[in-house]
């Protein structure tokens, strides 16, 4: 069960509002309350896993980026608010925020 309001609600109501960032818990808040956390699609090798070439696996995770010109899934921390890390899908060409999602949840309109 989900005790909180759905993140989808935030995603829709703020479609246009770009850097009015929709915290999945607190709702839309001013950009200055947040801290950017970078590309959320980067996959850090799991701690226990020992890939064939751990160094290059970590080099990819730590240094290499898709850096897309368009929708970008990224981490944000509501640092001056509820201190939740969450994911935002933002268009890097326009700064338009397309959706936000809690950890472990899919973006609005996407299957889990």
């Amino acid at each position, binding site marked *: *069960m989900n*005790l*909180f*309001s759905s993140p989808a609600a935030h995603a829709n109501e703020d479609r246009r509002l770009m850097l009015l960032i929709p915290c999945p*818990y*607190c*709702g839309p*808040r*001013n950009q*200055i*309350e947040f801290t950017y956390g970078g590309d959320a699609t980067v996959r850090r090798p799991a701690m226990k896993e020992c890939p064939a070439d751990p160094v290059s696996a970590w080099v990819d995770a730590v240094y290499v980026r898709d850096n897309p010109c368009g929708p970008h899934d990224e981490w944000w921390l509501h640092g*001056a*608010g*509820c*201190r*939740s890390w969450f994911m935002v899908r933002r268009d890097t060409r326009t700064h338009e925020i397309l959706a936000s999602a809690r950890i472990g949840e899919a973006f609005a309109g996407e299957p889990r």
Partner: protein
Amino acid sequence: MSDDGTLRPFGAFDSAAPGHYGVSPGAVTLAEIPISVAWNVQGDPLHPAFLAEAKRRFGLALPLVPNTTARGPAWKALWLGPKSWLLMAGDETVIVPPAGFDAQRDALNAAGGALFDLSASRVAFMVKGLRAAAVLAKNCPLDFHPRAFLAGNCAQSLLGHINALIERPDATPTFVVMVPRSFAQDGWRQLCRSSAQYGYDVVVPVSMS
């Protein structure tokens, strides 16, 4: 480790002294509010055991709706985050000896939660009066419109460059602004500067309970 209910001065300086400041007449009242006990409860609301333990300990159901508060006979709970609340002694006469804290902490740890003592971490200011919302809106990006910031709501945001936890205890135009202790002077300065054009009165510390 709250051992006493005495006022925790944030470091008095001139404009904190009771009196009238800015243009007359005063449309805003500022005061420090003593915090006697402020504990940070953390835990996963998806775990009934934790919620139950918290309820048993503090006599209230932790508010699960973001940015809302709940009151019990002795305690008030402010929502801080999806797994975090600030419990404040709504009544200054509550004396909790150190041992008391450890016992509460152990009990909550046992229930899969956590309890941290933050009683001395924040300094609270009251901003009261018809211009209270305007004063806060000068340096805080939140919407203080009565339809947007309801009585019984709380929110964390920024006051200028510093973090602030803001609560609206009731329907009157009154807000409680809590800032980190080491930033208290800057927080107070901002409130005074923002109030000056309306005129403001500083009164001796008052209790919000």
